[in-house]
């Protein structure tokens, strides 16, 4: 399956909807996501907390077109309920995926400097 990290159509749709608020939305997402990634790392051993954070993170990354990131969050949310075996690995994958898309959002954000 071809993995989409960032859906450009979603971004152009958001830009249309948000107009001048678009850069602020990108800032908010980056800032918010950073906090979520850190929170995930801190809660590695708390399945319940991981599930809740993953649920929220799934929603916002889905809204912002981070397709792969949203998929990983959903897997974490689902698996947090059952076995706890692979949760640490999933958190690492999310960490990694965010590190990947982050520069993409930042460069998108760059277009609107000033």
């Amino acid at each position, binding site marked *: 399956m071809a993995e989409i990290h960032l859906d450009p159509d979603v971004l152009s749709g958001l830009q249309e*909807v948000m107009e001048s608020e678009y850069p602020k939305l990108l800032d908010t*997402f980056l800032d918010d996501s950073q906090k979520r990634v850190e929170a995930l790392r801190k809660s590695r051993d708390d399945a319940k907390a991981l599930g809740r954070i993953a649920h929220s993170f799934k929603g916002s990354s889905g*809204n912002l077109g981070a397709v792969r990131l949203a998929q990983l969050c959903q897997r974490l949310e689902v698996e947090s309920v059952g076995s706890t075996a692979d949760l640490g690995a999933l958190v690492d994958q999310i960490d990694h995926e965010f590190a990947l898309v982050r520069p993409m959002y930042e460069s998108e954000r760059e277009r609107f400097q000033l």
Partner: protein
Amino acid sequence: MSNLAPVLEPLTILIAEDSAADLLLLSTIIRRQGHQVLTATHGAQAVEVFTRERPQLVLMDALMPVMDGFEAARRIKQLAGEALVPIIFLTSLRESEALAQCLDAGGDDFLPKPYNPLILAAKINAMDRLRRLQATVLQQRDLIAKHHNYLLHEQRAAKAVFDKVAHSGCINAAPNIRYLQSPYALFNGDLLLAAYTPSGDMHVLLGDFTGHGLPAAVGAMPLAEVFYGMTAKGYGLAQTLREMNAKLKRILPVDMFCCATLMCLSAERRVVEVWNGGMPEGYVHEVATGKRTPLVSRHLPLGVLSAERFNDSTEVWPMALGDRVFLLSDGVLDTADVNDQLFGAERLQQVFAANREPDRLFEDIEQALAAFRGQARDDVSMVEITLQAGEPLRAAEPMYADSGQSCPLDWSVGFEFRAQTLKSYNPLPYLLQLLLEIHGLRKQSGALYSVMAELYSNALEHGVLGLDSGLKLDARGFAEYYHQRNERLAQLSSGYVRVHVQVVPTPTGGKMTLRIDDSGPGFDVEQVLARPLDVNRLSGRGLSLVRQLSSDVRWLDGGRSVCVEFYWEALA
């Protein structure tokens, strides 16, 4: 009205969402759609903002810190009360259990992430339509409730006034009247009135107005006033009926009228005179034989016909003491069972036939109705009057405070009533009013009226009309007598009744001499007076009554003229 109506007015919408990016995105979309946005980042804050700002619609994330969306939704629905505050859950929850949880908490719809602005706008519009519908329903419900209460209040007030009017007669005081009216909160259209005439006869009216409540009560008031007023003044049924009909015709709308039975029971003359317009058949129950004579509706109800077309003709039936008259309203016959079958006259007849104790007739009928239907109607009226001797002769209205100092004491007056007048006019109430100007006579007004009425009807019926009272020996002859009376009266073209009143003072008070002459052939006074008094005879009661009530009676001119005297003491 189009289902795709655009947003009519901007709404205030609360968004509760803990993800900053989602919150920013959603608020911007909704603001762009023209609404005002309030935000909260957890459930407790959402409840607090709702309490303070009362937004019209809520977008609620399900999983939030502090208080989750489910609990917040429950509290907000509780705070909103009857008003519909739609809650749309922001969730991509895919499991049916979680969706059910949202609905249980009071959620009205879902919006999955990622957000689609078009779907969001459509959902907000749809929820707003529901919200408005609910608001309109509530508003109209409250309005209807308010009007309803207002109407009930008015009708209760009308009934209270009406009850005072309707119960000022002798309906509760007379020992020989039994009646049953179904208990009702409002005026049910049924009207029962009873009062004594000056000569001690009893007038009874059972009426049934079209409709219930205020419109019916409005018509009942003037009807009751006419009934009491004219009965007390000594007017007969015909005049009273004419006045009632004319009054109702004038004041009621075309489609309203009053079915009524009006009757006059005379223990003195042992008869009942009846007019029935539109009421179910009542009965005269001859106790000795068990025979029930139906009192058939012969006329249109009151308030339908113009004065010119109104028919005031009555029927007269003989009654022995102890005989009963039974009247009922259509609520009895029209009581319907579960299959819409009516109780009907035949079932009523069966109850009559099965009745062993006459005093328990009402209970028997009620039981039969209950067995037939299982529940009571609110417009069942029944009345039964037993003919009893010794009705008190009524004294006139309270005396004036001037103790008679200004009343006329030395005068005379004469009237001649000719054919056209005799046909339709009853001069007795007018004459009585004139005589009651003599305050000393007021105590005897009942006796005075009875004597006057007797002598006048003798002059008219035996004198002018030449009717033979011997006809009244049995029930059939009795009916024939009244039949002939009506016929001859209708054809009358000549003849007269003269009334002469002379009032003179005496050393101790005064004396009134009343002389009545008629144009008839006269009769053999000696022979008639020599007849033995027979209380069971239907005829001949009048003269013994006259002799009993007045100080002196004399016949002159071969029976064509009769003269009575009344004396009174000066008032202290």
